[in-house]
C-alpha cells in the first residue's frame, strides 16, 4: 500500500510538473483548493489519464472523480479496491 502511495506521489509530481518533491506530499494532503496542493480541473483530468495509464484504473464519471481525487489516501484506496 505504501508502495502505491509513493508511486502515486511521483506520478503526481511528474505528470503535473509540480515544483515540489514527491516525498513532501502528505498522504492526507488535500489535492485541490487552498491549503493543499492547489490543483485545478485541468490537473484533475491529467491525473485521471495518469491513473489509467500507470495504474490501470478507469475513472469516467465526474462524481467518481470527485469522490476519489481528494488525497493520496483516497486514490490509493480506490486503486486497492479496483484490484479486488
Amino acid at each position: 500500500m505504501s508502495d502505491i502511495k509513493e508511486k502515486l506521489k511521483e506520478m503526481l509530481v511528474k505528470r503535473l510538473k509540480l515544483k515540489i518533491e514527491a516525498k513532501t506530499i502528505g498522504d492526507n494532503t488535500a489535492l485541490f483548493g487552498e491549503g493543499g496542493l492547489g490543483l485545478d480541473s485541468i490537473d484533475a483530468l491529467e491525473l485521471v489519464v495518469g491513473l489509467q495509464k500507470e495504474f490501470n484504473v478507469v475513472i469516467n464519471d465526474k462524481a467518481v472523480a470527485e469522490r476519489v481525487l481528494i488525497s493520496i489516501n483516497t486514490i490509493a484506496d480506490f486503486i486497492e479496491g479496483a484490484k479486488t
Partner: protein
Amino acid sequence: MKNEALDNLPHSYPFRFIDRIIELDSKKGIAVKNVSVNEAFFQGHFKEDPIFPGVLIIEAMAQLSGLVMNCGKTEKTKAYLARVKDIKFKTPVVPGDQLVIEAEIEQNLSGIASFSVKTRVGNNIVAEGGLVIATA
C-alpha cells in the same frame, strides 16, 4: 448532416480553420482545411516564403475538438481551449496543402476532456500532440 455539423462551429471568417467535416461523432472527428495562398497572414508569414502558422494548425485542431465535444448534445456549450500539450510540428505547411485534421477524445470528465490530435498532409503527419477542451 455533415454540413450541419459545420454549422455548429461558432467561428466565422476570418477565423474558421475547418472547411469540411469528413467524420464526426461524440468521440472523434476528422476534418479538412485547404490552405490557400490568398489567406491574409501569408502577407507577413512570410512575405517571400509563405508558411502556414503552426499556431493556426493548433487552432484548427481545437476547433474540431470543440465540435466533437458538442456533438450529439441538444444544448450547445461554448468550448474553450484549456491546454496545449506537447504539440510537435514535423514539416512546414505551405499554400496548396490540404490539412486532414483528426481529434479523438482520450479522457472525458463531463465538461472537460483531453484530446489526442494530429494533422496530416497526404500521408505525412505535420503536427501531433494533445489538447484539453473545457466547456462552460
